[in-house]
């Protein structure tokens, strides 16, 4: 399952990369648009007025096509790499490393002429960026492993010192009279200036990065989740760590020209953080992060192409931020809504179990006091309400739910009874509760007055295996009803006292064992 998903990204990106190699993709898109547009235009003649939009949708502009393709691929690659840095709790590593590439760009521009190269050619600048980025990686490793400082300080130091060095070099470049006009795009990014060659570079390097990650999926997973275990299994943890950072540097570098240094950080962090809300599986998360990053690139640059005065880099980040907030609220694995719902359903289950057990114990004490063992002595609502500190609304809605499930019945005069199913369920709950109480008293030496409260908290999560173990441990003699007798007195005042805080518990401490 996991591998199939990963193979999918692996296959997708080289495919796009090979398409981007030449004009194949663009001609393919052209074919596509010529096939589809006439039918659409005949269907809606009014689309003529909105020619800008249709030009964009069918990627008729060569430039728009290149930009959208490049930024989407960039988003995908950044999402894949970002997944691992996020899980390694180093989301901001991209921040430090992208700043660390700056001095390299400046130095490459400055030194290239003396080596007989063109200082403004992209490969030269990117090589410089890569070299100084790797210096940044080395510096982070040095600070982290050789000093007492922690990760965040290592990132902060590398970021600010390299950034300072970068600014110093840029300033030299400007004052030496060199034409450094293009260098500023490395800080803010200008996707509109992307050429087909740049898009191809992004595609090839993005595919390479994805390939490395898929090939080393198991090793990187171990690195992220259990570094110590990976080391004990003989994996070269330090090398893997450096490799992961190198991948971040490479991804950052290809993104520098498209979205710029600061917004590149966003692409490394946000898609991965958004994907985390949707799944707990790493392979799925990687795929979702790639999709999310790709979608941000696509929508962001499309919006920027559609409307005037919207810078593409910033739009890409804003789109991914919107995706992040949507994921944070609606994510199916860790989203805020899902967690709230889960908490609610757990609370309801707990309420239900408290209600059934309370009813059962009231009925039990009624039949004991009335000397009748048929358990027909019904319970009044007010008795039940006094039992616990539940609000009337919560109790009523829970009662209604139990009646609907046919666990609780009402007598003609409005008093409450357990149905047969309700009785079976309640018996199980009371059994668990009292088992745990007895266990606490005999094996954990907890005072009788306190056990009710503790058992109250744990009774909802006792597994059948544990119950069987407890039964064997306590060697219970089977009573008539099949459940042990309560080790403490059960009365509305006594029990409610027990969960109204320590004062209540200590006053209940005078109760005697039956």
């Amino acid at each position, binding site marked *: 399952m996991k591998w199939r998903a990963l193979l999918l990204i692996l296959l997708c990106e080289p495919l796009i990369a090979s398409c981007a190699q030449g004009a194949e993709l663009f001609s393919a898109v052209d074919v596509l648009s010529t096939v589809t547009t006439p039918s659409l235009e005949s269907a809606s003649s009014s689309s003529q007025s909105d020619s800008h939009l249709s030009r964009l949708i069918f990627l008729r502009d060569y430039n728009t096509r290149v930009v959208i393709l490049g930024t989407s691929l960039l988003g995908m690659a950044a999402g894949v790499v970002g997944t691992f840095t*996020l899980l390694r*709790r*180093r*989301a*901001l590593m*991209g*921040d430090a490393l992208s700043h660390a590439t700056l001095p390299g760009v400046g130095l490459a521009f400055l030194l290239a002429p003396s080596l007989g190269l063109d200082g403004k050619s992209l490969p030269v600048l990117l090589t410089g960026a890569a070299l100084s980025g790797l210096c940044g990686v080395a510096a982070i490793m*040095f600070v982290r492993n*050789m*000093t*007492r*400082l*922690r990760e*965040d*300080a290592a*990132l*902060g*130091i590398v*970021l*600010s*010192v390299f*950034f*300072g*060095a*970068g*600014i*110093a*070099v*840029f*300033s*030299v470049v400007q*004052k*030496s009279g060199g034409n450094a006009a293009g260098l500023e795009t490395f*800080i*803010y990014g200008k996707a509109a200036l992307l050429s087909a060659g740049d898009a191809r570079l992004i595609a090839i390097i993005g595919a390479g990065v994805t390939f490395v990650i898929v090939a080393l999926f198991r090793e990187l997973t171990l690195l992220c989740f259990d570094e110590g275990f990976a080391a004990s299994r003989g994996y070269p943890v330090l090398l893997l760590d450096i490799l992961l950072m190198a991948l971040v540097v490479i991804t950052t570098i290809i993104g520098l020209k498209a979205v710029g240094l*600061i*917004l590149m*950080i*966003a692409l*490394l*962090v*946000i898609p*991965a*953080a958004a994907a*985390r*809300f949707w799944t707990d599986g790493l392979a799925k998360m990687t795929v979702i992060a790639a999709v999310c990053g790709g979608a941000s690139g696509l929508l962001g640059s499309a919006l920027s192409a559609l409307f005037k*005065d*919207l*810078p593409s*880099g*910033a*739009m890409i*980040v*804003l789109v991914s*931020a919107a995706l*992040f907030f949507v994921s*944070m609220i609606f994510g199916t694995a*860790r989203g*805020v809504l899902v*967690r709230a719902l889960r908490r609610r359903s757990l609370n309801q289950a707990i309420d239900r179990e408290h209600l059934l057990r309370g009813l059962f114990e009231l009925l039990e004490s009624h039949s004991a006091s009335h000397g009748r063992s048929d358990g027909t002595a019904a319970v009044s609502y007010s008795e039940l309400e006094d039992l616990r500190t539940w609000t009337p609304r919560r109790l009523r809605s829970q009662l209604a739910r139990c009646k609907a499930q046919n666990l609780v019945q009402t007598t003609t005069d409005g008093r409450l009874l357990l149905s047969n199913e309700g009785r079976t369920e309640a018996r199980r709950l009371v059994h668990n509760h009292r088992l745990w109480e007895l266990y606490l008293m005999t094996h954990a030496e907890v005072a009788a007055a306190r056990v009710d409260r503790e058992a109250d908290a744990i009774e909802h999560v006792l597994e059948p295996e544990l119950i069987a173990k407890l039964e064997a441990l306590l060697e219970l003699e089977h009573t008539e009803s099949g459940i042990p007798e309560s080790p403490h007195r059960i009365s509305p005042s006594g029990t409610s006292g027990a969960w109204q805080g320590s004062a209540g518990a200590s006053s209940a401490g005078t109760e005697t064992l039956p």
Partner: protein
Amino acid sequence: MSGLIAWFSSYDGLIIITGILCAVAAALPGNFLVLRRMSLLGDAISHAVLPGLAIAFFLTESRASVPMFVGAVLVGLLTAVLTEWIRDFGSVDEGASMGVVFTTLFALGLVMIVQAADHVDLDPGCVLYGSIESTPLETVLVAGHEIPRAILMLGSVAILNLLFVIVFFKELLISAFDPGMATTAGYSARLMHYLLMVIVAITAVASFETAGNILVVAMFVVPPSTAYLLTTRLSRMIVLSLIIAVASAILGHWSAKAVPGWFGFGSTSIAGMMALCAGLLFLLAALFSPLNGVVVRVYRRMKLARRILAEDVIALLYRLEERQPGRSVPLSEICTRLLSSRVATQWAVTRKVHKGFVELTDGGYRLTAVGQRAAAELVRSHRLWEHYLVTEGISPDVIHRQAEKLEHYTDRELRDRLQTESSAPALDPHGSPIPEERG
């Protein structure tokens, strides 16, 4: 004295003072950021304030500095609050939530500024690089003196931060190291946290406006980290961080003029060089800190390795003499038996010769009477440990290696205890006699 004043009111002097004030103002709260593992907050705020500036501009339709300042500080605070909110509400890793917040705010700010660019010159470049070089040009009149605005502003922020740290020293200390304890002691750790955030935001914004963001982001993190490597006390750490901050400001100013000249270029960005110099000072501290510096650690390890080798040499000579009394052992044999390199062994033997433990006789080495005694102690430790480990139920196959390590750390007192614990044996588990304690 008057020459000094004249120099300080010169163009370069004013720039240095600005740099020093910015460095001091940032390093003070920076100590607590580093201790609370929030080193990247300064950087995050420096990017995130952009929309605050833009909104202030939209609201007031002017580039007046007070609304801009307030807007930026508010958004800076918002960064800290939003980061925490996403961390808690969405249960996201702290770093990731900071990354989401500041990049989003920055992007938002960029969009706003581009929208405003039609009306006014408010380009991101001037926000990100307020330049320290031009600070002496913009002056205000205070009590009859022309004082650069940057110095006035950064000076008041530095004084504010100093007062903050002095007044709340104990509270900051406790809440940095143990927030739980701070709360039980009756201080609100949360309140201190937000006060610190306010201070950080004010410092950051005041500095961007005047000296540029590079300087302040670096000074938040680098001098406190450097000081952290040099001491383990908070008060000393703060003082040291201030000294380092001042030193990097001065050094940075000098090198901005001098260093590019070595390569045939003009001058360079002063703020950038100040950050770089702070980085160099950090590197020096990481390497040479007497506390735990890399060089110091390597030196200690080498010293220990040499001591152990020298002790191994005399213990070996003792054992060989035990088997064949009066024999002198050539250096090559010592090397092969100890599996050690010739140079290191030669060095160790020479040291022992100097100390009078070993003497050179007919082409080999032999223990002197003093050396005999020292070696006997080591061999005694070794064999006592072996005996003890066997009586403790450890397999005889592994005891030799254990004892080999332990013998170098065993003193007279410990030997005596081993002797009584293992009921005064005469032979070790391998059958060799355990030497008597002498003197």
